[in-house]
């Protein structure tokens, strides 16, 4: 059965397939991706894991990518970009396509090649960055990767980061900027990160919009962390408030490797992030921390599945979401402990704050355990601001507005405090403060 939507995806694919770069994803893999996607069907809100997502934009979307060089692309200037983080190599992509002029590699050890310029270089030094994704392992085998399959079929460009030198601790920042409106097509930011054993990388991944167009973004990220390696990954979703922002991240964490993933989502009209992490090796560690703010009509939907398939791995999942106005903020966090995963230690702390009478919070912790000898704890709460805390602040002379904002701020602290880079933390704090209307009163406290 092919739905009208699936048929449209197929038609659009057929129309542009000849123009899609074979060097990014081979025609064969594109074809497989589209076939698998059509066979499975696009997500609908009848699917349990998509019930909180706003999928209506899909009905209107153009799936074909924004053509490189299209007049719809408004190339931003460097000043539209966030201030640079010291010591980070920056690679910028506009509507899914690498833009060297906005990129600033910091040292020779980090290299980047460009498909468009035909200068792809081999990996060298502690980290190599190319914007050519290598073969992603079969997305079709992942539990929920339909939107990643969509990305695979239509991919135009992307960043591939490979760290091979155990001596360095490279720092890379990827900035994806959406400019064109959905009527001009979709943008497909793509990232592949692979860490060789015992290497380290700090990665900052930003998603922004320049201009006020209603962008349609479908991002796909693949992370592969080798034995004993450590990836610190910050993801900041600050797409424009008319944007539809869809996202799939799939990660595999090997033995004794560590993945610290921290996501802050404040942007987009409709955002959906699907995270899948496989604890593939014994003693692997994952911290998955996410903060999401929704206001007005925003939808911030998150689905995270962590699968333990090896013994003695640890997962710590923290979510803090605030829904104001008429926004909906959802986090569905599932931890599956398979038979081979004895000694698993997992913790979930999911909390939602309702900050408006018409807002909606959905936090759902789920545990599936197929073995004994595990330690799994989970807590989930959704509620309003605490009256006692509020009164305490009022009794010290703070206005209701400031007191509420301060408490919302405090609510996010469990996630924000995990940001180990002071400069990035300050940027994020300002973003969060800015998101809470009338930020001046908070900024003075920063």
């Amino acid at each position: 059965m092919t739905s009208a939507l699936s048929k449209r995806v197929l038609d659009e694919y057929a129309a542009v397939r000849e123009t899609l770069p074979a060097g990014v994803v081979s025609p064969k893999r594109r074809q497989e991706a589209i076939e698998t996607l059509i066979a499975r069907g696009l997500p609908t809100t009848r699917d349990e894991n998509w019930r909180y997502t706003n999928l209506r934009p899909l009905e209107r979307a153009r799936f074909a990518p924004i053509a490189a060089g299209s007049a719809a692309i408004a190339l931003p200037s460097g000043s539209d970009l966030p201030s640079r983080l010291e010591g980070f190599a920056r690679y910028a992509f506009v509507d899914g396509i690498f833009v060297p002029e906005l990129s600033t590699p910091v040292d020779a050890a980090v290299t980047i090649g460009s498909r468009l310029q035909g200068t792809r270089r081999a990996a060298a030094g502690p980290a190599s960055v190319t914007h050519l994704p290598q073969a992603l392992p079969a997305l079709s085998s992942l539990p929920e990767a339909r939107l990643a399959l969509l990305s695979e079929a239509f991919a135009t460009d992307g960043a591939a980061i490979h760290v091979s030198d155990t001596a360095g601790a490279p720092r890379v920042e990827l900035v994806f900027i959406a400019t064109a409106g959905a009527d001009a097509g979709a943008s497909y930011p793509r990232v592949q990160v692979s860490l060789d054993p015992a290497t380290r990388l700090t990665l900052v991944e930003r998603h922004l919009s320049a201009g006020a167009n209603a962008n349609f973004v479908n991002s796909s990220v693949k992370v592969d962390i080798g034995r004993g390696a450590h990836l610190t990954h910050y993801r900041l979703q600050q797409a424009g408030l008319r944007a539809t922002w869809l996202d799939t991240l799939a990660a595999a964490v090997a033995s004794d490797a560590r993945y610290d993933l921290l996501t802050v989502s404040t942007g987009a009209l409709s955002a959906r992030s699907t995270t899948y992490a496989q604890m593939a090796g014994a003693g692997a560690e994952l911290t998955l921390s996410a903060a999401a703010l929704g206001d007005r009509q925003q939808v911030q939907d998150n689905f995270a599945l962590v699968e333990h398939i090896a013994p003695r791995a640890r997962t710590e999942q923290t979510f803090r979401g605030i829904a104001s106005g008429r926004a909906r903020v959802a986090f569905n966090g599932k931890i599956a402990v398979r038979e081979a995963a004895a000694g698993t230690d997992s913790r979930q702390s999911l909390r939602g704050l309702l900050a408006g009478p018409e807002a909606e919070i959905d936090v759902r912790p789920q545990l599936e355990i197929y073995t004994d000898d595990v330690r799994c704890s989970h807590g989930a709460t959704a509620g309003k601001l605490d009256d006692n805390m509020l009164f305490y602040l009022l009794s010290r002379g703070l206005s209701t507005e400031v007191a509420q904002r301060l408490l919302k701020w405090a609510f996010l602290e469990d996630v924000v405090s995990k940001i180990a880079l002071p400069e990035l933390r300050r940027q994020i704090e300002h973003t969060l403060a800015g998101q809470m209307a009338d930020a001046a009163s908070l900024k003075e406290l920063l």
Partner: protein
Amino acid sequence: MLKIDNLHVNVDGKEILKGLTLEVPTGEVHAVMGPNGSGKSTLANVLSGRPGYEITAGTVSYQGRDLLALAPEERAREGVFLGFQYPVEIPGVNNVYLLKAAVNAARKHRGLDEVDAFEFLTLVREKMRLMRMEESMLSRGVNEGFSGGEKKRNEILQMLVLEPRLAILDETDSGLDIDALKVVANGVNTLRSPERSLVLVTHYQRLLDYIVPDHVHVLVKGRIVRSGDKSLAHELERRGYDWVAGEAA
């Protein structure tokens, strides 16, 4: 400074204060003592403007103004301070942020510029030494993980920094060991001045050995049944509340 006249207050439809009358002139320290359930905390909460208290009759005037007409934050900015019996923990709101925001709210109200960051920290550090508080507490969440005694010291620290005109301390002595009690009392005493009034709400006379009141009032069943000087507190300690309760009946 503070004039309470025939105050009647209901909580959940039940009358707790039943015609309380009390006057605290400027520069004086008054103790309100009473057994459990006499309405002590209700009095403190009503004065600070906590929601959930229904005032059915009576008036409260503060510096000639109708205190009950002011929102809690306005009372604070006008110089009313409540030292909580059970200070709430607010993880994620930094102690020093709160102090600064509170000071600036009051300054703004008086048409003053924001406090200078350096001078402010110097002042806070000085007051912390007085309260024997570790400086590291400043960067922690408000009362987060504090012991009972630390919370009470933090209340007094806030009071010292805010320099209120009228401070109401609700059972500040409860849960304190003798050393902490002395520190807290010492802190409170430094704030005594001819321009400032203090109301100490307490169950026990012990606190009054260290903060000597000008007047002592006994609250029983929602009314002041007896007033006197500090010797009244000692008499209460000796004879128990049944003594005055019996008289009140």
